[in-house]
């Protein structure tokens, strides 16, 4: 996989801690299990392929020995060996290819399943999980971490397997050819092990630093380019160019330092190979002179070829260990997500909330996002079917929290919410949520056509329905002016849809759902007043006969509410209709007056 998301990967590599290997392997095993048979096949194919290549040098050597000095060549023998060699090599290539794509098949399958599992788990997690985390972190588990695991499965296992067979195999072959020559490796193997260890130890922290610095640079660039207009407005270009220079230098230096050491390993491997070659030729030659019957030229040549096969894999395995570590760490992060506590299952005897009249009774609700820091204290409220309940108050007064609890995005610490007399803890979540329609300040649209965004996966919705609600939401004429009308694909860069228009689209979506209760959380805050006036009728129709919970800054929008709750620091400080509250001349009245104040 090419480096798809550099900046995502970076953040992860330096948050390193001890990996719980048993935990990871246990989970990994369950993913590998369905492929057990295929894995065994691949294992044998791979061993067979490696063995085929192993016999190569031996046969070469034998063939070379058959070339007689002066015309005494045994052509039949050479022909035999050559044919054997060609067959072996062909078989080896075929088996190698098959085992590689086999492993690729397995790893893709596992990656796909992991992604779906992680996604499915995420979709079952409570909203609080996402409120506490950055979207980027969650996404990097799903893309980067799983990719890393998949890569490692596809490549590393094969390489390690092959290397082990090669190392053992060539050792055996060399042993049969000329055991004494193995002494050479007493020098070169420790040498190469020491060197690789040294390099890996040195390089790993450097690579972590390099990722970190690159991540910092990327973060900085993203910030400053996004805010280019501001920078221009304050003529601060020079300041930020200087700051960038500092980050740039650091990133380049970290890159260079890691590369200095990273690129040492290649030549070092070369050195060990070359030293082996030198030592083997010297000792081999000496043995040949000592007793030509024991040591032939052909044998020296096979020994040389085996020695190359022998030292290569050792270094390769050493290199892979580093990758393996990061794959394990990535796998652990993946499995931790899979082990996150999902929203508790609905009680086994949970009812399906149906034919809701819309009577809402909240009593004595207390709740805090963090223990010991209640956001809502002893909150009570009664709404009869069809009531419009407005909740007002400063930012942070706890208005949105009420909504979070009504929808069971969070569960209250104490107190109960009843709908039509039923405790919402005793009904299924999906039926509870379906009883509400929600329009939020944050407009959420996904990459897809306008039509798909409004119908949103509801197969019962017809084109006419969608056009009808769009007309009601005063967005129909805007949509028809788009290049492909309702089939225009919405995405971030290409389209010029303003915040207000986005909000109208989400209002249209909400209109499609005919739920008995409605939640409007700053639903028209991005719509300008003229348009708001236009859609007021549609909103009224949407609200008609439904129990509505309305949160709004603009107090004019809630003046007609049946009940206004005024919240301050998690408490309801006043309650009543607009008239009674204004007459009371308390906190609400002062809030209300402040919007007309001139200085």
């Amino acid at each position, binding site marked *: *996989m090419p480096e*798809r*998301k550099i900046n995502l990967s970076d953040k992860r590599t330096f948050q390193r801690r001890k990996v719980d290997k048993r935990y990871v392997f246990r989970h990994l095993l369950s993913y590998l299990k369905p492929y057990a048979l295929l894995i065994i096949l691949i294992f044998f194919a791979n061993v067979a392929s490696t063995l085929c290549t192993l016999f190569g040098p031996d046969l*070469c050597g034998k*063939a070379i020995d058959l*070339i007689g000095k002066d015309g005494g060549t045994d052509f039949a023998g*050479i022909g035999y060996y050559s044919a054997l060699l060609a067959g072996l*090599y*062909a078989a080896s290539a075929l088996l*190698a290819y098959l085992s590689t794509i086999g492993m*690729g*098949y397995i790893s893709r399958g596992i990656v*796909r399943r992991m992604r779906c599992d992680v996604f499915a788990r995420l979709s079952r997690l409570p*909203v609080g999980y996402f409120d506490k985390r950055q*979207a980027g972190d969650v996404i990097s588990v*799903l*893309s980067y971490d799983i990719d890393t695991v998949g890569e490692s499965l596809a490549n590393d296992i094969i390489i390690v397997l092959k290397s082990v067979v090669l190392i053992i195999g060539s050792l055996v072959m060399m042993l049969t050819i000329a055991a004494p020559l193995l002494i050479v490796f007493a020098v070169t193997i420790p040498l190469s092990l020491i060197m690789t260890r040294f390099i890996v130890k040195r390089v790993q922290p450097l690579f972590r630093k390099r990722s970190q610095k690159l991540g910092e640079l990327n*973060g900085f*660039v993203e*910030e*400053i380019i996004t*805010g*280019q*207009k*501001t920078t*221009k*407005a*304050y*003529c*601060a270009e020079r300041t930020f160019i200087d700051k*960038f*220079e500092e980050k*740039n230098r650091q990133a380049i230096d970290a*890159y260079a330092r890691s*590369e200095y050491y990273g690129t*040492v390993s290649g*030549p070092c491997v*070369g*050195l060990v190979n*070359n030293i082996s*070659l030198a030592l083997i*030729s*010297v000792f081999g*030659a*000496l043995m040949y002179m000592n007793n030509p019957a024991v040591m032939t030229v052909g044998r020296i040549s096979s020994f040389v070829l085996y020695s190359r096969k022998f030292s290569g894999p050792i270094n390769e395995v050493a290199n892979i260990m580093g990758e393996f570590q990061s794959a394990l760490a990535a796998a652990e992060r993946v499995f931790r997500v899979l082990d996150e506590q999902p929203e508790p299952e609905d009680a086994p005897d949970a009812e399906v909330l149906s034919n809701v009249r819309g009577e809402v009774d909240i009593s004595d609700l207390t709740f805090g996002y963090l223990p010991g820091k209640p956001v809502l204290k002893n909150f009570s409220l009664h709404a009869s079917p069809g009531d419009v309940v407005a909740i007002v108050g400063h930012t942070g007064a706890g208005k949105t929290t009420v909504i979070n609890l009504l*929808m069971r995005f969070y569960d209250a610490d104490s107190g109960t919410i009843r709908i039509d007399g039923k405790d919402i803890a005793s009904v299924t979540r999906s039926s509870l*949520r379906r009883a509400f329609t*929600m329009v939020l300040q944050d407009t*959420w649209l*996904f990459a897809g056509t306008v039509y798909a965004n409004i119908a949103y*996966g509801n197969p019962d919705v017809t084109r006419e329905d969608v056009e009808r609600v769009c007309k009601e939401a005063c967005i129909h004429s805007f949509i028809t002016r788009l290049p492909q009308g309702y089939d225009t694909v919405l995405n971030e860069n290409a389209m010029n849809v*303003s*915040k207000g228009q986005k909000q109208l689209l989400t209002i249209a979506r909400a209109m499609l759902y005919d739920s008995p209760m409605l939640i409007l959380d700053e639903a028209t805050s991005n719509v*300008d*007043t*003229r*348009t708001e006036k236009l859609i007021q009728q549609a909103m009224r129709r949407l609200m008609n006969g439904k129990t509505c919970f309305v949160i709004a800054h603009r107090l004019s929008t809630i003046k007609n509410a049946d009940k206004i709750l005024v919240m301050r620091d998690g408490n309801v400080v006043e309650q009543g209709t607009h008239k009674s509250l204004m007459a009371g001349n308390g906190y609400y009245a002062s809030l209300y007056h*402040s*919007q007309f104040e001139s*200085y």
Partner: protein
Amino acid sequence: MKGTLKYLKPYSGTVVLGLIFKFIGAVSELLLPMVLEYVINEVVPRRNVKMIVLLGGLMLLFSLSALLSNIYANRLTVKSSGNMTHDLRYDLFERISYLKSRQVDGVGVPSLISRLTSDSYYINQMVARTLRLGVRAPILLVGGIIITFIEDVYLALVLLACLPVVAVTLYFISRKSMKIYTEVQRRGDDLVRDMQENVTGVRVIKALSKEQYEREKFDGIATRLADEEYRANKVMSLSNPLATLILNMGLVAVIIVGAVRNIEGGTILAVLSYFVIILNAMIAFTKIFVVISRGSASAQRIEQVLKLDPAETCGGYPDGDPAYEIEFRDVSFSYNGVRENVNGVSFTVKRGQTLGILGGTGSGKSTLINLLMRFYDVDSGAIYVCGKDVRNYLAEELRKKFGAAFQSDFLMASSVRENVDYGRRLEQADIDRAITASQAEEFVTGLDGGLDCDLSQKAANLSGGQKQRLIIARAIAGNPEICVLDDVGSALDYRTDAELRKALARYYPSSTKVVVAQRVSSVKHADLIIVMRDGEISGAGTHETLLEECEEYRQIYSAQMGEENA
């Protein structure tokens, strides 16, 4: 590509030195098998032990020289490629910083970011790898071929016959796989986008109980990605076994030809060794091929930005009436050249006055600000600041007069102080006053470390209203001649909004204020209110005159204030 490689020029000394050492290293490696062959063919039959040991020592020497010169050469190439990338990135960032808004629109912000990050990274990789492998591989390849020719012409010809087969095979495989990889990348982007949507829309999805639907949708995306990845894998995995197979077959051919031509064992052995070296060189070539083709695409994207000319024209326009701080004279403008975003707008504001701009979404309010601060140039008409056409100012001179808080403005991941100061090196007193006036004092003092508290990325640790107040503080901290507040009241509740207005009048009496708003209460007190509609002024005057004369204003006002106040 040329424009990018230019950046390597200042480091050509290092590059050349690196290449020389690479050469030494490669030659040392090439000589090794030759010595081995000489030992086996010439020295061993003569039973010259001393010579054998001597030549063994020579081989060790070559090994060491290969090691040292390779390491040194690698350092030099890392250094020169790093420095070159540094310079390129610097120029690119500088250029982007000064780009005109229209040019930024043309390329797109996400694209600019990726050019500065991933593209420059790929170029670094490309140059480093090409310098490192690109010299070694051809030397080993050509040298290996030459030496095998010296060894034996026929064996060399066998070898030579294999090479084009390998080259063509590898070329086709990497070309094909690159095509598939673009597809893989696209599918991968789909997956990330879908996940992103699901994280941001978690409330909506749960509210509509669409989890199952989303899971199925994701399943489809994940499956399509896996299919593409598997397809890429099938093609990519071909290269290694195929290349090895072809060369191994060549090896067999060498033995047969060697036997037919009755060549000495030592020679065959040497040729076989060169075979391995040449195979590795070929594999290195394919790696370089991939890196270069990706790098050159990146280079193109970077050069495209570097070619943009950010220089603003300056001068040559007649002056306006110096009595006014701001004057718009029949201004028209369009972003895309199709639809007028601003049409025939004229008004004047005196120094110290407050201008209110009211209007709905897309009515052209923010466009007026963009034109006033000359982020864009007018298509016709003229804008004067202090009686001078904005196009006669140097960009810096003009913008120094302004302090601006934009709609969806941004805060950096650094301290509160740095965010307010924004590189202007303001006095402490100025910053304090701005924090007070913008109503930010109350929460800033509550922050851990106060002014020195570090904000997280996108200031996620602040609420919307808090962010807004810091952005306002930044706008007024420099005691600007003209203070622009573009729809900053929307995230503030009415009371804070009112306090802000009072504080602005008290602390910054001489500033001319331009307030863009959707709420009447934010502009009600202004000396001049202009009501925008579809890019045109539909009413201008004070609150009182507008109430009398402007139907639209009256409508907005009554809608917002409730009927009994109208």
